[in-house]
C-alpha cells in the first residue's frame, strides 16, 4: 500500500467514525449506508469478479436475519409462543441476555447462509448466464413465500425483535459501529482475497469457464467458495439490519427481491463491476441520491429506479470506474504507450 493510498484509507476511516458524532440525527441512515456497501461488495464477488449474476443474493440476507432473530428469542423464550402473540409478549431481556443472544445470533447468521450457499451451489451453480440469474431469483421468491407461510417464524406478520437494552442514543451508535465494522472487515477481506490466486481463478471463470476448466481449475469448488464468501457477509448484514429496524417480516425487510435484491446489482453496475472500489463508489452515490430524493419523489421513486437500471445497463454499462479506466488508464497503473509525434506537441 502506498503512502498516498494509506492516507486516503485513514481519512475515509476517520470520516466513517466521525459521521455519527457530527450528525447524530442521521446515525441510522449512515448505518444503513454501510449495509448497502456490504450489499454491493458481496454482489460484486459473484457478479463482477466471477461473472455469475445472481438476482437472489438477498436470500442470504433474509436467511441470516431470521436465524439471528430466532436465536435471540429462543435463548430466553419459546419461539412459537412469541411469534404467535404478534408482538404482544414483551420479553425484557437483561443486558447479558441481549448481548449474548446478539453475538450468538450474528455468529450463526454468518454460518447458516454459508451452509445454505453451499447447498444452493450444488443445485444452481451448474446453471450458467441467464439461467443462473432466473434460478437465484426463483430461490429468493420461494424463500419469501415459504417464510410467509411458515407460522412458527411469524409467517407474513413477522417478528418483533428484542428491544435494545441501552438508551436511545446508544442503540443507534451501537448498530452504526457494528455495521461499519462489518463493512470494513468485508472490504479488508475482499482486498486481501482479490490479491490472491483465488481471484485469478474466478476471473478466469468469468472470462471463459470452459477454458478455465480445461486448464485444470476445479471450477465448481471455486464458484462454491465465492458464493459462500458472499453469503457469509450478507448473513451478518441481515442479522444487523433486522435488529436495527426492530421488526422483521418476509416480503419487505427480509427477502425484498425488488428493492434490496435489485439495489445490489444496480449499485455495483453504477460503480463499475469487477473492481474493488467500484461497488463502494456505486453504493455511496446510489445511497446518497436515494436518501436525498426518495422522500420527495412520492411514488415516483421506483420509476426512477427502473429508469436508472435501464439507462445504466443499456447506455453506461462499464460503470463509473470502468469509464474512468477507459479515460484515465494511468490512474489505474496501466501504462499507455503514447506515440512520440503526439507527445512532442504537448508541453
Amino acid at each position, binding site marked *: 500500500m502506498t503512502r498516498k493510498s494509506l492516507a486516503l484509507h485513514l481519512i475515509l476511516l476517520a470520516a466513517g467514525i466521525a459521521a455519527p458524532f457530527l450528525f447524530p440525527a442521521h446515525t441510522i441512515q449512515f448505518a444503513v449506508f454501510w449495509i448497502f456497501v456490504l450489499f454491493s461488495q458481496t454482489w460484486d464477488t459473484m457478479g463482477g469478479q466471477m461473472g455469475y449474476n445472481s438476482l437472489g443474493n438477498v436470500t442470504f440476507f433474509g436467511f441470516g436475519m431470521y436465524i439471528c432473530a430466532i436465536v435471540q428469542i429462543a435463548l430466553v423464550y419459546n419461539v412459537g409462543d412469541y411469534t404467535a402473540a404478534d408482538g404482544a409478549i414483551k420479553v425484557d431481556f437483561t443486558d447479558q441476555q441481549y448481548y449474548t443472544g446478539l453475538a450468538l445470533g450474528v455468529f450463526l447468521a454468518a454460518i447458516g447462509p454459508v451452509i445454505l450457499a453451499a447447498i444452493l451451489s450444488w443445485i444452481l451453480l451448474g446453471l450458467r448466464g441467464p439461467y443462473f440469474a432466473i434460478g437465484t431469483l426463483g430461490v429468493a421468491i420461494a424463500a419469501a413465500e415459504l417464510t410467509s407461510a411458515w407460522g412458527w417464524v411469524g409467517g407474513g406478520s413477522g417478528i418483533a425483535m428484542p428491544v435494545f437494552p441501552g438508551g436511545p442514543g446508544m442503540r443507534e451508535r451501537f448498530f452504526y459501529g457494528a455495521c461499519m465494522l462489518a463493512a470494513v472487515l468485508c472490504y479488508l477481506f475482499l482486498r486481501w482475497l482479490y490479491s490472491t490466486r483465488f481471484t485469478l481463478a474466478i476471473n478466469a471463470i468469468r472470462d471463459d469457464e470452459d477454458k478455465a476448466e480445461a486448464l485444470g481449475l476445479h471450477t465448481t469448488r471455486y464458484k462454491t467458495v465465492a458464493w459462500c464468501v458472499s453469503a457469509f457477509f450478507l448473513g451478518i448484514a441481515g442479522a444487523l439490519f433486522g435488529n436495527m429496524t426492530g421488526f422483521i417480516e418476509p416480503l419487505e425487510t427480509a427477502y425484498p427481491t425488488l428493492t434490496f435484491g435489485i439495489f445490489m446489482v444496480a449499485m455495483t453496475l453504477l460503480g463499475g463491476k469487477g473492481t474493488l472500489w467500484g461497488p463502494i463508489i456505486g453504493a455511496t452515490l446510489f445511497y446518497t441520491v436515494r436518501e436525498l430524493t426518495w422522500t420527495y419523489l412520492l411514488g415516483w421513486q421506483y420509476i426512477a429506479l427502473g*429508469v436508472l*437500471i435501464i439507462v445504466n445497463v443499456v447506455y453506461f*454499462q462499464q460503470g463509473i470506474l470502468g469509464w474512468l479506466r477507459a479515460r484515465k488508464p494511468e490512474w489505474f497503473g496501466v501504462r499507455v504507450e503514447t506515440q512520440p509525434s503526439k507527445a512532442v506537441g504537448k508541453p
Partner: protein
Amino acid sequence: MRVGAIASMWDNIQILVTAPVFNIQLWLNGLSIGAVFALAAYGLALVWGVTSVKNLAQGDFVMLGGYLGYELSRHGVHPIVAIVPVGALMFGYGWLIYKLIIRRVIQLDLFTSLLATFGLAITMQQVMNLVFGPDVRTLKSGFGRFDMFGGMVDITQIRVIAFGMCAVLAVAMVLFLRKSRMGQAIRATAQDPRAARVLGVNTDLVYALTFSINSAICGVAGVIIAMIWVIQPFYGIAYSVRAFVIVTAAGLGNFPAVIVTALGLGVIEQYAGFVLGAQFQQATVVSLLLIILIWRQLLLRRHRLALQ
C-alpha cells in the same frame, strides 16, 4: 399445528378421491388459466428464440394489456371487442420499447437483456400503479355460467370463450410463422441471424416485429386475464415467472411443448392450490421452476460425464 396442516391436506385429497367431479372443476379452471399462460409463454419463447432477449417484463406487458382493456371498457367498448384495439396499441408499445431499449441490448451479453427488462418491469409496474391505482380490477363481460353435474361443477361462459380465443390466436401464430413470407424470415433469423442477413433479410425489422408481436399477444392475454380473473399492477411478476417456468421446462423452439406445458402448469397449480392451500400456490410455481432447473442440470451433468 403442523399435524393439523397435514391432516387438512389429507382431507382435501380425500375429497378429490371420493368426489371425482371436483377433479373436473379443477381441470376446467386449470385449463382456462393455462391457456393464458400458454399465450404469455409462447410470446416469451418466440422473442427468446429469435432475438435471444429474455423478457422479464413479460407479465407486466400482460398487465398493461389488461389495463388498456379495462380503460376501453369503461368507455363502453365490450371487452371481447376491445381485444383488437388493445392488440394494436400493445403492438405499437412493443415497437417503441424495442427501439428504445431492446435494440441496444441484443448485441450485449445475455444478463444485460435480463437486467434491462427487469428495470423495465419495475418501471411499468410503478407507472401502472400510479395511473390505474393499486386496486384489484376485473372486466365484466356480461356472460353467464354453465352448470354441469347438477350444479356440482360450473364454469363461466367467458372462460370457454377465452379458451377458444387463445386457441385461435395460437393457431393463427403458427400459420403466420409457417406460411407467410415474414414468418419465414423470422424463423430464418432465429436459426442464424448472420446467414439471414446475408440472404437479404432485414433482421432489425424482424427483431422489431417479433418483439411487437409478442407485446400484442401479451396485451390480448391481459384482456383475457382481466375477463376471467383479476389484474393488479404488481401481479405481472407472477406471469413472468410462470412464462419462464413453462419455457424452461418445454425447451426453446418447441412450441407444441410450450402449449402443453402451459396447460399442465395451469392444472398443477389448481391442484396445488386446492390440496396445499391458496397461500402455497405461488411457492409451488417457483419450486417447480427450481425442480426443472435442477433436473436440466442433472441431465447436463450426465451428458458431460458421458463425454468424458
